[in-house]
């Protein structure tokens, strides 16, 4: 993990227009940003497009960014990425094809069934965006309820209710019942 000092100096020299610093920043941050984007995008290609757009905007918008710790940098990038995602979201079809899920990693472990995981991903993508976001934050990114509640602007209890309902709807989509 990069140190705060490193990131901070990279940001400031990139802000001054140094391209090399921007490249280094990109190589440090892009895997993280991609991890954020991928579950929210319909396919890997879409996700890569959004990643590209995100960093273009990041480069352009850098002068407005003031460094207040690594998390502020992440937040800045995630904010750009979510804006890009919601913009392209309208253009995407609701349906996700199985082919576009070729990059869903096969989980090691004897009892898990890759086909079932793919079905869940598919069902997840067809959910309403709020439901989807809650489930991604909770299960794919493994965030705590209190974190998610702050992020989405709910109380923790309200969030738990929403989370529960999102799970029910996911189940319904999967015809688990």
């Amino acid at each position, binding site marked *: 993990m990069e140190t705060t000092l490193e990131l901070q100096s990279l940001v400031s020299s990139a802000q*001054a227009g140094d391209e090399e610093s921007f490249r280094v920043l990109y190589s440090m941050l892009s895997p993280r940003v991609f991890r954020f984007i991928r579950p929210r995008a319909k396919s890997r290609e879409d996700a890569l497009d959004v990643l590209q757009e995100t960093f273009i905007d990041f480069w352009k918008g850098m*002068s407005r960014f003031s460094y207040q710790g690594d998390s502020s940098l992440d937040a800045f990038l995630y904010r750009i990425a979510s804006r890009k995602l919601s913009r392209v979201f309208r253009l995407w079809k609701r349906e996700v094809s199985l082919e576009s899920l070729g*990059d869903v990693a096969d989980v090691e472990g004897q009892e898990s069934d890759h086909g079932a995981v793919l079905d869940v991903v598919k069902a997840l993508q067809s959910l309403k965006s709020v439901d989807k976001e809650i489930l991604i934050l909770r299960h794919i990114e493994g965030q705590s309820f209190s974190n998610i509640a702050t992020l989405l602007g709910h109380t923790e209890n309200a969030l738990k209710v929403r989370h529960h309902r999102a799970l*029910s709807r996911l189940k319904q989509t999967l015809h688990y019942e």
Partner: protein
Amino acid sequence: MNNNHQDIEKALSEISFRTLSNEEQARVLSSIVAVQKKPLLFNSNKNFMYKSIIIALVLAVGLGGTVALADNSVPGDPLFGIDRAVENLRLSLASSEKKNELRISFAGERVKEIERITTSSPSMSRPAATDVTESTVTRIEADVFTNETVIKIEYGTNKKFVFTSNAKTRVLVVEDVNKNFTVLSKAFIETKLDFKAEDRSSRADDRDSSSDISSEDKIRVTTGINAAISLLNSVSASLDANSSIRLKAITDELNRYLGTLPPNSTVDVRIDSDDDDESRIDLRTVDGRIRIEMKDGEIKIKTKDDDKSSVSSNNNGSRDDDDDDDEGDDDSRGSRDDDNDDDNGGAIIPLPPVPAPITTTSYTMTDVKLHNVQSNCWTTVNGSVYDVTSWISQHPGGSAAIASMCGVDASSAFNGQHGGQSRPVSELASFKIGVLK
């Protein structure tokens, strides 16, 4: 209903995606760099395959390339307008973090130019020798300030030439004028001279610097640049969304720069591209012509005063009421000769309606605040004022979003929501009523 969601929670937590591979990371980076680089590509253009892009680039390159030349021009030189336009162009092409830097350096250049005018360098346009004769000179005024002497020669109809000298006495001033204009005899100068001593330093306005910009030159360059705008406008039709947004921004910048143009100005834009190595843009106006040539990576800008009668007859002869800009812009011609009498093939493009409301009407924030209700709703975005009353009910994102902006500045809301999108930008532009003072 089964409220135990353990199974599905487990399935969800098993989802993971392949991480970003090195190859993917590199691929995305190269696209990012390509986009970043675009505005900076002033020298090499091998990546640009489409003619329309070449045209846009020729213009960008052409204007970019004049910077060195036009930087030295002061108001009054025909290139001055280009100088200003180049700055706006560079400004709008620059990434945002470069913008401030550029603005600062431009401001520096402005100051230097003013200095150059006010110190009456040799670059100031001297009247032609035939214009200043004993029969045309009406008045000579010499103001002796503590630091220098400002001499004004009024000649012809309301024309003026101002220069400074070190002469402190009446006799020396007469000698100085005589030295500069040998056709004027000392006795003549003596009769016309109005000699005044001022007990202070001279100021810029003592030198009448504004009157040095001949209205002809002003018209010439502004007309030429307006032509560039229409060129940019038509080019953007065939570009991808990103480029057209950038071009739109340039166009708007240029529009903002333009002063008022005389009505009925016409301009002739032609693009000759014999091959990829040489491209040429002629901006031809009733008053003259600005030519931007690019050959083997070298850029030349020429201005030329055409014989007015020949140009105007040319206008009449080939005037085409069809104001389809694309047609004129795509006019590829093999001929390289400079003679404009056989230019019948070039389309004369009537100037796009001068964006009068854009350049002439300005409002204060107080004006805008008066229109803060849904039935009469003005708002400002990025320094422009818009009357969006009719748009409230049509906004795809709901009427509330617009209604909440009535009478206030919507820049951050607009940029946050629609920054970089072409559709909202062009929709918004259609509601523009003026600029913010």
